[in-house]
């Protein structure tokens, strides 16, 4: 279980010129927090944002049932890619009722990585729908849970109704190399997209 070294220093290099962000999205308990924590060079941080509109439903969380507040927690991590460029990964909840939060996060985001669980593939549709609504390019990474069944890619693609060009990879959110490769698959895909203004 390799993970990125955690720096004691919370600050960015003073030479940083550009900060970019990617969204790590998916349904509840799909491994977003683990994924972000595995890749982050700093202790992953959590911030809370209060939603302006009350959600119609509450999360299906054992022990938190009846919680009707509209506060959502955002987990995020940081990767300094070179002395001028830093990448932030934001783990974002996948429910439609967090649309306002998405508007804030999605602006300027390079793209999104959808984490999926083969035991609950159908729960990924809502978040993929949201991404399409926001016009945000995405790749899908199946988080390889120990007790989850594995399927051939063709079956997974069909089950998730993916476009032929949408990357599909398998990763272990607890492993830094595996998780890094999943992010790389997303960025490689972003580079192949046809419309590149200001390029």
């Amino acid at each position: 279980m390799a993970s990125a070294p955690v720096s004691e220093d919370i600050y960015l290099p003073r030479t940083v010129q550009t900060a970019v962000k990617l969204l790590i999205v998916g349904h509840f308990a799909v491994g977003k927090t683990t994924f972000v924590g595995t890749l982050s060079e700093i202790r992953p941080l959590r911030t809370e944002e209060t939603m302006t509109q009350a959600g119609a439903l509450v999360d299906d969380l054992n022990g938190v049932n009846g919680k009707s507040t509209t506060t959502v927690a955002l987990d995020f991590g940081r990767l300094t890619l070179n002395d001028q460029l830093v990448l932030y990964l934001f783990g974002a909840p996948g429910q439609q009722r967090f649309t306002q939060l998405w508007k804030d996060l999605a602006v300027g985001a390079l793209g999104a990585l959808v984490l999926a669980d083969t035991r609950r593939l159908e729960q990924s549709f809502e978040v993929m729908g949201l991404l399409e609504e926001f016009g945000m390019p995405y790749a899908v990474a199946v988080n390889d849970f120990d007790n989850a069944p594995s399927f051939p890619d063709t079956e997974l693609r069909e089950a998730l109704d993916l476009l032929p060009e949408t990357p599909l990879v398998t990763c272990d959110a607890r492993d830094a190399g595996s998780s890094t490769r999943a992010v790389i698959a997303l960025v490689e895909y972003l580079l192949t997209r046809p419309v590149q203004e200001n390029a």
Partner: protein
Amino acid sequence: MTPHRRERALVRPHVVTGGRAHPTRNTFDVVTVVVATRASFSGLTPEKRRLMELCRGGPLSVAEIAAHLSLPISVTKVLLSDLFDSGHISTHAALPRTAHPDLQLLKDVLDGLRARL
């Protein structure tokens, strides 16, 4: 995974921001990098003083400032906006807000990620 209850600030967010829900400017993204530019904190409210004390150590993104201060991002943006107006902070690493980021930026991200493997 289960969100644990965070210690609440003694002062409610709307008091911290002087009753305002929106910043005076809309230039702060969650990944906008903030740098302290003034060493004197005189005249600042306690929350702004806390923010400046945090930022004095080096550059941080808006999201990191919010997390370290246990403030919602929206409240943090209001405070930062005031501090920007009063010359206490500057921002850089402004996020490209184009729908399609330029190729060189994506290539730099890719190179940085590959170097970590």
